[in-house]
């Protein structure tokens, strides 16, 4: 090793000098010996590596594709899909190893998801006048009916969460497939975690009764209201897979496969490019009540007005579940849907 006699002052000055360079100071305030400054400059010049522009763009594209692409993709995913599923509640998913017959049955479900996502998207797009629309024509998914039959005169202070406020990531189709696998196997085992029926099979003008419960505390209310707001913003963005980000795994499974098997109409919407529909925005319906249910979930209750000629008030629920400190939509009941 080359001997040296380190002077504390010199080391401090060099450190200050290098810190000034690091902080982008145009002229370092600290002075060091000229030949040492020249050494620093030469080393910095030799080591400063500007990556090829195509590399920067390619890596960014890979990162975004892996994070937001519609399928698991063939490129190496830098974000572990399993971890992404953890966003909601990995601990809640059934963890048993499926037997061969179940795997075989699930293969049909998975294939249906992939094929339906492709074909259903095309069919669904073709059915829309003027091109693809993210707003489904009805059914359970038409949860916040924007009222395209007779325009509703909203009060002046009505809030319409804009699409730009839908800032959550999408859930990838590969993740949805995994969620459906677990839920499907759960159904096979009769282990659905709901302890009372909620998702309506038919048009029901009056809400099914909810269990009694206390009001939630202010922090819980604020957290749930934020998810509620973002959820409607994502509705207005026409981005179903971003809505799914705000839903629990069971919630996603119930939305896509209310009877345990995905339907063509629901899966097909996964393939539709998110597109906001101008003039068809969903409002932030005022919350009537946030009720703590006996199973620990929270019901967000709000009312909607039906379209003419039946302009009754309808009760709607969003049921939230907490996982790892965050709240997710676990189930929905839509009074005006049918």
């Amino acid at each position, binding site marked *: 090793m080359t001997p*040296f006699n380190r002077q504390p002052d*010199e*080391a401090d000055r060099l450190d200050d000098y290098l810190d000034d360079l690091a*902080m982008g100071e145009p002229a370092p305030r600290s002075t060091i010996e000229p030949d040492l400054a020249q050494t620093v400059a030469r080393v910095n010049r030799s080591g400063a590596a500007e*990556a090829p522009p195509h590399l*920067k763009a390619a*890596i960014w594209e890979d990162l975004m594709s892996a994070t937001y692409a519609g399928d698991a993709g063939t490129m190496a995913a*830098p974000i572990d899909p399993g971890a992404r599923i953890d966003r909601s509640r990995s601990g809640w998913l059934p963890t048993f190893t499926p037997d061969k017959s179940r795997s075989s049955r699930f293969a049909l479900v998975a294939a249906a998801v992939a094929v339906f996502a492709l074909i259903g998207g095309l069919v669904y797009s073709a059915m829309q006048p003027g091109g693809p629309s993210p707003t489904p024509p009805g059914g359970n998914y038409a949860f916040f009916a924007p009222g395209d039959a007779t325009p509703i005169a909203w009060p002046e202070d009505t809030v319409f969460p804009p699409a730009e406020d839908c800032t959550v990531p999408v859930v990838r189709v590969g993740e949805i497939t995994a969620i459906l696998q677990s839920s499907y196997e759960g159904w096979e085992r009769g282990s659905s975690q709901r302890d009372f029926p909620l998702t309506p099979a038919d048009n029901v003008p009056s809400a099914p009764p909810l269990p009694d419960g206390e009001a939630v505390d202010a922090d819980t209310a604020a957290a749930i209201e934020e998810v509620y707001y973002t959820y409607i913003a994502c509705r207005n963005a026409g981005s179903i897979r971003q809505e799914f980000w705000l839903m629990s795994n069971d919630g996603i499974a119930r939305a896509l496969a209310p009877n345990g098997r995905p339907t063509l109409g629901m899966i097909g919407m996964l393939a539709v490019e998110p597109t906001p529909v101008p003039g068809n925005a969903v409002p932030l319906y005022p919350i009537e009540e946030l009720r703590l249910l006996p199973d620990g979930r929270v019901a967000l209750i709000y009312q909607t007005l039906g379209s003419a000629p039946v302009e009754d008030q309808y009760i709607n629920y969003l049921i939230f579940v907490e996982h790892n400190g965050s709240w997710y939509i676990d189930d929905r009941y839509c009074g005006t849907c049918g």
Partner: protein
Amino acid sequence: MEITLKRERWGDVEIDDAEARWIAAAQRDLRAFAPLYQRYFDAVYGYARNSLRDPELAADITSETFARAMKALPRYRSNSFRGWLFTIAHNAIVDSVRRRKPTAPFDDLLMTPDRDPSPEELVLAGESTRWVSALLDRLTENQRQVVALRIAGLTGPEIADVLGTSVGAVKATQFRAYSRLREWLSDEPELRDGAIR
């Protein structure tokens, strides 16, 4: 993208307020990570390349670093984003070296001479750059790491965080490193032929 240069001091590290806003936005939506990526890509790539002396591997490490960072961003609470990001890069480099040659000491692997440069690289890099790079290879692993992080633009406290050491140790190490480099560069004519071959 225009960068606001208003600075605040968080602990020992200054940050600009634009970066704080980018981080907050990216924690809500990873697509907002773009300006952070734009700001730090070259520095991370350079650090990986200077550490590993392999452009292809450096590209892989850079990709892995940003992927890890984006995944961990919701949990980010550090004072220095740059220090946090380079800690991830440093760990990715260490992991990569261990994967490549699990039985070889880290120091030996980092001392592996550069591969033969392509004609294009020779033209671009120039002999002077190669000469300094060869000298960096002669430093100890610690010294080389500190210098590589300095080249990447990190401050002393950030380097201390990345390497898990004290600011005083970084100060002493970098002084030894730059003193040795100064000495070697002053002997350039005698050493040059022997160092690059």
